[in-house]
C-alpha cells in the first residue's frame, strides 16, 4: 500500500535521513523508532505529502493517507462533536457517532474543546482518523499524554483498522502493545552531516 524506496528527507535544507526504504502492505503496521531529532516527523510529513523528498520515491494510492500530527488541529471554541463533524464533512462523511463511541468521547460530545484535558484532546484528535475513512494512517507520536487505558483503547482501534485492510505507520517512543507491528530503527539511516568544505563549495 505504501512503499518508500531510497528516500532522503531534509529539514531546514540539511538532509536528516538517507536511504530509507520500506514497504507497508494492507493489514500491516510499522513503528518507527529513533532518538529525538533523527527525523521521524520530517519523514512522516514527507509521506503525508507536506514536504518534498530530496531523493528517492514515496509511492501510495492517491488520497489514501490520513496524517495525524503532534498537534490535533482542534478549535477551542467548537464543541467536541462540531470539531469531529467538520472533519467528517471534509472527508466526505464518516460516522461521527461511532468514532465518538470508539474513542470513549461520547459523554463529552457537547463540551467545548477548550475545556478538554490534554489526554481528551488527544483522543479527539485520534477520533478524527476514524472519520477520515482513509486506509493509510501516518501518525506522529499518537499516544502523547494518553493514560494507560487510552493507549490500550487506541491500540485496539489500530488493530481494528489493520484487520479491515488498513495500514499504519507510527512514530512512537512507548510500547503500544501491538505485537504484530514491525519496528524500524531509523538511527542507521542518519544522514552524514555535510563537511565544512562542502558547505563552502555551495556558496562559491
Amino acid at each position, binding site marked *: 500500500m505504501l512503499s518508500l524506496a531510497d528516500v532522503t528527507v531534509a529539514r*531546514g535544507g540539511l538532509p536528516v535521513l538517507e536511504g530509507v526504504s520500506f514497504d507497508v502492505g494492507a493489514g500491516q503496521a510499522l513503528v518507527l523508532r529513533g532518538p529525538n531529532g533523527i527525523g521521524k516527523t520530517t519523514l512522516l510529513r514527507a509521506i*503525508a505529502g*507536506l514536504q518534498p523528498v530530496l531523493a528517492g520515491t514515496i509511492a501510495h494510492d492517491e488520497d489514501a493517507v490520513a496524517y495525524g500530527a503532534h*498537534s490535533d488541529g482542534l478549535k477551542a471554541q467548537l464543541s467536541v462533536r462540531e470539531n469531529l463533524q*467538520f472533519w467528517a464533512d*471534509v472527508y*466526505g462523511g464518516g460516522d461521527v457517532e461511532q468514532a465518538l463511541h470508539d474513542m470513549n468521547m461520547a459523554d463529552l460530545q457537547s463540551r467545548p474543546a477548550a475545556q478538554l484535558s490534554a489526554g481528551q484532546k488527544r483522543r479527539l484528535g485520534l477520533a478524527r482518523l476514524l472519520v477520515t475513512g482513509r486506509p493509510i494512517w501516518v501518525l506522529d507520536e499518537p499516544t502523547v499524554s494518553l493514560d494507560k487505558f487510552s493507549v490500550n483503547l487506541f491500540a485496539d482501534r489500530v488493530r481494528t483498522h489493520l484487520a479491515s485492510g488498513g495500514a499504519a505507520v507510527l512514530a512512537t517512543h512507548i510500547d503500544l502493545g501491538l505485537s504484530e507491528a514491525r519496528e524500524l530503527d531509523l538511527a542507521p539511516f542518519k544522514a552524514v552531516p555535510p563537511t565544512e568544505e562542502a558547505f563552502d563549495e555551495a556558496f562559491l
Partner: protein
Amino acid sequence: MKALLIRDLRLAIRAGGGFGLGLSFFLILVTLVPFGVGPDAEVLARIAPGILWVGSLLACLLSLDRIFALDFEDGSLDLLATAPLPMEGTVSIKALAHWLTTGLPLVVIAPLLGLLLNLPLQAYPWMILSLLAGTPALSVIGTFGAALTVGVKRGGLLLSLLVLPLYMPTLIFGAETVRRGAEGLPTTTPLLMVAGITMGCVALMPFASAAAIRVGLKGQ
C-alpha cells in the same frame, strides 16, 4: 468546502473570533474624524469618500493575520493541506469567510457612518456599490498576504507592508467612484475599474495563495 465555510463563520462569530474587530475599528475611526477635523460640514463632505474608503481598507487589514495564523498554530492547516480539499478551494473559502465577516458588515454599516461625515445624499448608492464591488478584492488580496506570511512568527507587520501596495488600485478607484458620485459626475469608469480589479483578483489570487501556503508548510 461548505463545511469549512460554516466552521470559519462559526469561529468568527463565537467568543474570541474576529467578527466585530474590523467593524468596531471602522466605527471608531469614522466617529473620531469629525472631532479631529472640526465640525465644518463642507470640509467633512469633501473628505468623506476618502475617509470611508481608507477606513474600510484598514478595518479589513486588521483581521487579515487571523485567516491562516490560528489554523497554522493549532495544526489544522497541516491537516487541511492533507485533506481531500484542493488548496485553491480552501484559500478561496477562507477569503469568502473573511469577506462575509469583515467586508460585508462594513458595506452594511457604511451608510450610517456616511451621515456622521455629511456625505452628500447622491453619493450613497455609489458608496454602497463601490464598497460592495471593492471589498471582496481586499479580502482575496489579504488572504494572499496571509498565505505568504503563514510560517512567520508575529508576521503582522510584514503582512501589512506586503498587502498595502496591492490595496492601492482598489482604494484609488473606489474612493474616486464615491467622490464623482458626490459631485454628480459620471461614475461608470472608476466603478468598472473597481469591479474589474476584484474579478481579476478573485480569479487569479487563489492560485498564488495556494502556492504560497504549500511553500510555507514545506519549510516547517
